[in-house]
């Protein structure tokens, strides 16, 4: 079922997986990078299975898993090593997944409203000249985005690519709305410079 499940089944008590993951998180809290990488890698399949149960298979499944991982990262200091790890993780995961479901229903509502507005709005989308005008070098955009510092990249991904509201993006990324605004502004400035051949690359500020 998941990578997490075999860990849990490795020993008879249900908390065996918890103990292993809890120990890894305790080491991660102390700054152990290897333990943290191992924990997130082992937890990812469990989170994916959880996301599948909430969302069904869909294009946003992997985005949801990544949002959960970012939330875990942002509040890893709230884990108390003496307590079971899995309920801690499951609470964060279910909160994120409910957010994704709410977002989905909002998008569906918007689409229904747009289609009810009439076919004119969609007409331009089929015009080859409009499509040609929108062609961009996607590869260079991807490279430029990949070159951004982590927080700036997150800000662009959540605010511009996933089109989340500022509040939603703040919740998903664990950054404050102010920090997100600044990161997005710097990211767009850096992208503009990189894509138009302007001076300098990504802003050194994260």
């Amino acid at each position, binding site marked *: 079922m998941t990578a997490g499940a075999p860990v849990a089944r490795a020993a008879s008590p249900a908390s065996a997986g918890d103990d292993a993951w809890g120990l890894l998180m305790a080491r991660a*809290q102390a700054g152990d990078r290897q333990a943290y990488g191992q924990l997130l*890698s082992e937890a990812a399949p469990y989170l994916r299975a959880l996301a599948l149960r909430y969302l069904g298979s869909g294009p946003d499944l992997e985005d949801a898993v990544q949002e959960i991982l970012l939330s875990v990262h942002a*509040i890893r200091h*709230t884990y108390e090593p003496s307590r079971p790890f899995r*309920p801690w993780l499951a*609470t964060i995961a279910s*909160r994120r997944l409910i957010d994704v479901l709410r977002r989905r229903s909002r998008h569906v509502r918007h689409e229904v409203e747009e289609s009810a507005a009439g076919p004119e709005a969609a007409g331009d989308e089929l015009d080859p000249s409009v499509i040609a005008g929108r062609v961009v070098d996607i590869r260079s955009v991807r490279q430029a985005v990949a070159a951004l510092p*982590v927080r700036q990249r997150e800000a662009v991904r959540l605010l511009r690519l996933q089109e989340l509201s500022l509040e939603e993006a703040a*919740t998903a990324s664990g950054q404050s709305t102010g920090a997100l605004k600044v990161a997005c502004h710097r990211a767009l400035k850096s992208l503009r410079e990189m894509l138009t051949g302007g001076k300098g690359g990504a802003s050194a500020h994260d």
Partner: protein
Amino acid sequence: MRTTEQLIDQLAATVVPVVPLKPALLRAVGWLALSAAIVAGIVLSHGVRPDLAAQFARPVMAAEWLGAVLTGVLAAVATFQVSLPGRSRRWLLLPLPGLTLWLGALCLGCLADWFRHGPAAWAVGPSWSCVQAILTTSLPLGIALLVMVRHAGLVRPGATALVGGLAVAALSAAGLSLYHHVDTALMVLIWHGGAVALVVCAAWGVSERLFAWIGPARA
């Protein structure tokens, strides 16, 4: 754009040591001590009401005040617990004994007033100063609480704000009772109760925006 494995590699490569939060009960005690100091300061700045000893000699009045304090204390403990991932939602029920004592004492107070004063006990006038006092006292307590449970935005923002709002409003109302006189228990029920309900509803209503605005504490 980026695979989950790449994200994991990035997070693991950039992870830094963090200090785990102190136990929830300990942090609740810390906030309660800070709140007691703030409320005491406000009470002293207004001056304790002259009839306080006489009022507290009446069991109903003492029970009403203790109910407000108990509600505030239990709601604060519930706030710190429910704000953490992995804790039971049943912590939300913790303030109920205090709330029952508070509302029960207020209802008994209404009956006692009726026996003592007759129909005059049902006279209700405006007391906007009560609402204003509870709102202004709730503000510093609420800001301190928000900072201490700022991680709740990624956990249970609505539930945390609900009991957090109850904690700050109940303690504010308890403080107000020490320096402000209201004629009847019904007035207290309406104006204090109304202000508490207002704070709780407002905190719950804006919880997601509030937590998104402040963001979780970073290491």
